[in-house]
């Protein structure tokens, strides 16, 4: 049975915990603070949206959460495990089995069909993905008639749906989406958002969505705002957060 709380229940162990994490780059003689001293918790069932201007550090923050890069300082904990204690193989295992990623511009393999693109993560997960399972996922995102099409034959919105299906292949507990609707029209953006909302509400999936559109953030449960690498706002949006009992 599902119930809701206000996101402050101490009993719920966070899916994501960031403790004073920072990420710096050297650009010539300058040090760029892409993420600067961010502390954050994301609870199970949260649908957190991160907004901010270009270069505010939201994509870097998402990458830190997903273990795609290591922090210069601080600790990232995912599913109760400190990422610093995991070696590359363990991180890869985590990404293969518990985290799903959706990127801007989809980045599908151009020489694989939609169905084969969805099956791809099966190479890295615990078991391969059958053509039927891939077909079911594509049907869920509304592309049951596009199984054998190549990415070049699909529109931007359709490619993003395929990328979403691909991210769900290994039944992840956490979905990280980096501007998946960045290059899409308003209508298609809305369709993608509906799918994400369904994932969150019907399946209880924890989602972190990076978006340039502050309006989209209103559809989640938590709105985080980044500015110059710092987390300036952390708003509970709908006053309710889903947790499992």
């Amino acid at each position, binding site marked *: 049975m599902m119930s809701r709380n206000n996101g402050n229940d101490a009993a719920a162990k966070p899916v994501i915990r960031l403790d004073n994490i920072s990420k710096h780059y050297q650009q010539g003689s300058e040090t760029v603070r892409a993420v600067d001293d961010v502390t954050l918790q994301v609870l199970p069932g949260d649908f957190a949206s991160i907004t901010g201007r270009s270069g505010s550090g939201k994509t870097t923050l998402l990458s830190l959460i997903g273990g795609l890069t290591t922090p210069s300082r601080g600790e990232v904990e995912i599913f109760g495990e400190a990422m610093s204690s995991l070696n590359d193989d363990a991180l890869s295992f985590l990404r293969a089995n518990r985290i799903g990623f959706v990127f801007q511009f989809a980045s599908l393999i151009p020489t694989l069909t939609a169905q084969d693109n969805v099956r791809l993560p099966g190479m890295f997960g615990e078991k391969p993905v059958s053509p039927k399972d891939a077909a079911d996922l594509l049907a869920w995102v509304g592309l049951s008639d596009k199984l054998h*099409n190549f990415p070049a*034959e699909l529109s931007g919105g359709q490619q993003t749906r395929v990328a979403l299906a691909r991210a769900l292949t290994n039944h992840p507990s956490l979905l990280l989406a980096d501007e998946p609707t960045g290059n899409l029209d308003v209508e298609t953006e809305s369709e993608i958002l509906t799918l994400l909302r369904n994932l969150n509400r019907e399946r209880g999936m924890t989602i972190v969505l990076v978006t340039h559109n502050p309006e989209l953030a209103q559809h989640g449960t938590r709105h985080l705002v980044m500015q110059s690498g710092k987390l300036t706002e952390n708003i509970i949006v709908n006053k309710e957060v889903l947790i499992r009992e």
Partner: protein
Amino acid sequence: MKQLKRASTSGIATAVLGFLIVITPIILPVCEGLLELASGKQVPMRCHWTARAEMLLGVLIFIIGLMITFLKNPQERRRLHHLVAMLGAATILTPIFIIPTCMNPDMACNLATKPALIILGGVVLLVGMAGSRTPSMPSSESTE
């Protein structure tokens, strides 16, 4: 679109091979001498006719190659590929069995012309077989 591109490639390849078969007896000529019959008449050697037959086959392969390149119907292209395969086989068999070249293995026709034609015929056969096996269904178009 991909189908059409593949067919054009195979059509062009077939035409080029046909052209090469036509010019092979020119670049690598067969025996030039004449044979004197018992009656005193002088006739060209057997390989002269082998070369003529092969050049005809080359012309046919060239023309069919062009047809494959410009035809759009996949069924018709497949049928033409079957024909190309058969002509490839004929190109191989002609200098060996149908109009065999001279008996002496050291003669010009056997040293260069015959092996070149057999090799080219083999390639034509492979191209024909490959082309006759490609699916005939056109790929679906995006609707958005």
